[in-house]
Structures are given as C-alpha cells and as structure tokens.
C-alpha cells in the first residue's frame, strides 16, 4: 500500500506563569521543537524530522499541541521533546516544558484520548473547588459551549444535565 504513515504526538505545554500562555502559537512551538531536535541530533536529525513535520492543532488556553511527523522518525522527535526549555514569540520568552500525553497513528485516536483526558481534568478541577458557587460557574461555562457532537458531562455532578447539542 503506498500510503505515507504518520505519527501524531499529543503534548501539553506546561508553563509556570500565567502570562506565558500568550507565547503559545504554532510557529513558536514549531521552531522550539526544531531547535531541540537540531541540538540533540544535529543536521541529520533536523532534516529527517522536517520531512512531514507540522503543528496540526494548537489550543492556547489549555496548552494542547498536536504535532505530526513521519512514522519512521517519530522516535527522534519523541526523544528530543523533553529538551525543549522555552518558547519564543514576538520577542517574548517564556520558560516552559512539553509533556507528551499520547502518540497515535491518526488524528482521530488523538482526539479520543484528548476527550478522555479533558474529562478527567474536569473531574479534578471540580474536586478542587471549594464552594458551590465556583462549581456552578464551571458547569455553566462548560454547558454554554456548543459543538456539533455535543459535550458530555463528567460523572461528578449531582443533578441531571442534558448534553447540549447545537
């Protein structure tokens, strides 16, 4: 079968200061990862990984990044990801690190994982809330976003909430 096989690496950008979130954009992340590969593997590594390397999806609010590379070179990419130390964009430098969440062969598998992961995050977020008012506000904000597939709720809620489909 003549088909190019890719690997999609799902990572999360973890930064300490909240203002670092503004630095996260796809070109900045791409350059940072390429830099790290160049430092670890040199010209050969950089050339191999750039064959089909792109940042497919980026979410600045949660810090989720989806990278794509060829299946043969995904080891190079994965082992160079821990070496990323900072993101630079528009003159701003933000120290952070990337933590791999999932490596998948298709975007759909990564999306499934991301949905499960976000559900678990929502659970911990709701558990850490101290008063009922914050919980209500979180639930409102989750309910008010509308996707075509609908967004299911976490199992932590007491009352029955219908999923919102729009």
């Amino acid at each position, binding site marked *: 079968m003549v088909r190019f096989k890719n690997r999609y690496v799902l990572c999360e950008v*973890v930064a*300490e200061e909240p203002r670092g979130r503004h630095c996260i954009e796809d070109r900045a992340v791409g350059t940072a990862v390429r830099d790290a590969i160049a*430092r*670890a593997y040199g010209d050969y590594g950089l050339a191999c990984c750039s064959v089909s390397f792109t940042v497919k999806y980026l979410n600045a609010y949660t810090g989720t990044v989806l990278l794509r590379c060829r299946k043969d070179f995904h*080891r190079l990419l*994965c*082992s160079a*990801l*821990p*070496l990323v*130390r900072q993101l630079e964009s528009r003159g701003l430098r933000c*120290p*952070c*690190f*990337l*933590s*791999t969440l999932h490596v998948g062969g298709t975007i759909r598998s990564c999306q499934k994982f991301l949905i499960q992961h976000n559900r*678990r995050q929502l659970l*911990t977020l709701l558990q850490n809330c101290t008063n009922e008012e914050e919980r209500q506000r979180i639930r409102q904000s989750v309910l008010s976003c509308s996707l075509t597939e609908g967004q299911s709720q976490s199992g932590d809620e007491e009352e029955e909430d219908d999923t919102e489909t729009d």
Partner: protein
Amino acid sequence: MAGFADLNVPQGPDKKGLQSLLEAAARLGYSAVALNHVIDFKEKKQEIAKPVSPSELFPSLPIVQGTSKQLKVLTRLTLVVSDPSHCNLLRSTSSNIRLYDIIAVFPKTEKLFHIACTTLDVDLVCINVTEKLPFYFRRPPVNMAIDRGIYFELLYTPAIKDSTMRRYTISNAISLMQICKGKNIVISSAAERPLELRGPYDVANLGLLFGLSESEAKAAVSTNCRATILHGETRKSACGVVYTVKKLRKVEEEETLPACKKAKTQA
C-alpha cells in the same frame, strides 16, 4: 503496572519550592518521590541528621493525576565518597542512617565503585553525569551489583540544561549500557525547580537517547524504581533470620525457640 517514581528530588531549605515541585510531580503522573539529602565528605565532617518525616513538612500531599491516591514521599540519603574511610559510616550501626528509606552512594574512584558494588549495603549507585568518568566500568563488579539487586542511577536534568553536560551524560550512560546490557538502571531527575521536571513517558524517551531499548527505558522509570524502594524496605527491616524447627516429640518443647538466631527487628 508499577507506578512511576522519581527517586531524586534535592531537598533544599525552601519549603514552598518543594511543595510546588511535589505538585508538579503529582500532576505529571509520578506516584512516588524521594527527597534527597546529599552528604559530601570533602567538607568538614557533617552530622547525619535524622530524616525529617514528610508528613511533618507537608500537611497535605497532592493527589496523583490519573489515580486517586496521594503522592508517596520517601526520604533518601546520598553519600559522596572519595575515600575508603568514608564508607565506615555505612558499616557502623548508627541509627540515623537506618531511618532513611533509600541509601545511595556516589563513588568517585574505581576502587570505591568496586567496594560499593560488592560489599556496601546500599540501594543505589550514582553514576556521574557532569564530567568524564575517571575510570572505566568493568564487568565483574557490575555483574555482582546486578546479582545483589543494586541499581545504577542516571540523572537527566543536566542533560536538559547544558549541551556539554548532555555529551557527558550520553557517553557515560552508553559506556554503562555496554557493560550491563541495560539491566538495573534507574533514571531520575535532580530537579530543583518545577520547570526541570519531565513526565514519565518523556523520561522513558530520554532513556532511548541513552542507549536503552524501549521496554528497558520504561522499566527504568517504573519497575526498577519500585524494586529499589522494596530493596530499601528490606534493608531497613530485615536483620536476621528466625529458624524454627518443628519437633515431633513433646508439645512443651515447642514453646522456646531454638537458640539459633533471634530476629532483631527494628522499629
């Protein structure tokens, strides 16, 4: 599957920094963390203090993401030895050393490496990653260490920070791999700030850089760490053997243990 553990978190005097480090580790998915005290004998003689119990330092331990258990915090002592007389401290029955969960030794010369692998009662042998090794590894002491259940520790934070350190780390790690074939390796951070920590899958991928195979690299972060912790526990608790022999004759004689070896279990 054994949970992931990070066995080297330097314990500084800053409590808030440590707290943020522990929270970052719990968020990344580590189930156990060991707070490390480094004792260097080159300076003047220091007293080995009793380990501070983690429950006193941190009233509430963060919950590991992905499970519902709390982060397990252990205490660890690292001795930097450059002289054989420093090892006497380990052989003495000083009670303060016994209270640490994990004991590690950092040998600086070949003779000390041999002694550490063959006779010393430790759990971990640290491998220097910040400078070129002054000695080559030889097969006999390494094989003896593997038989005794001692693990070799590699740090990865210098590799993240600096390019020359990275070269030394990789070259030292690969020379160790060639002798021990990837068995009994533990990879840990020596992270002083939360930004220097990396998640367990990332650390396993770094192990690929060091020459480990994929399964060995994953084991280096999970199974081997758990084995080290268990090794430390057995070293703490087991001191002797109780040997009872069932006598088929009268019942009264079974009351007293035969005077072979009595168990000295320490609290």
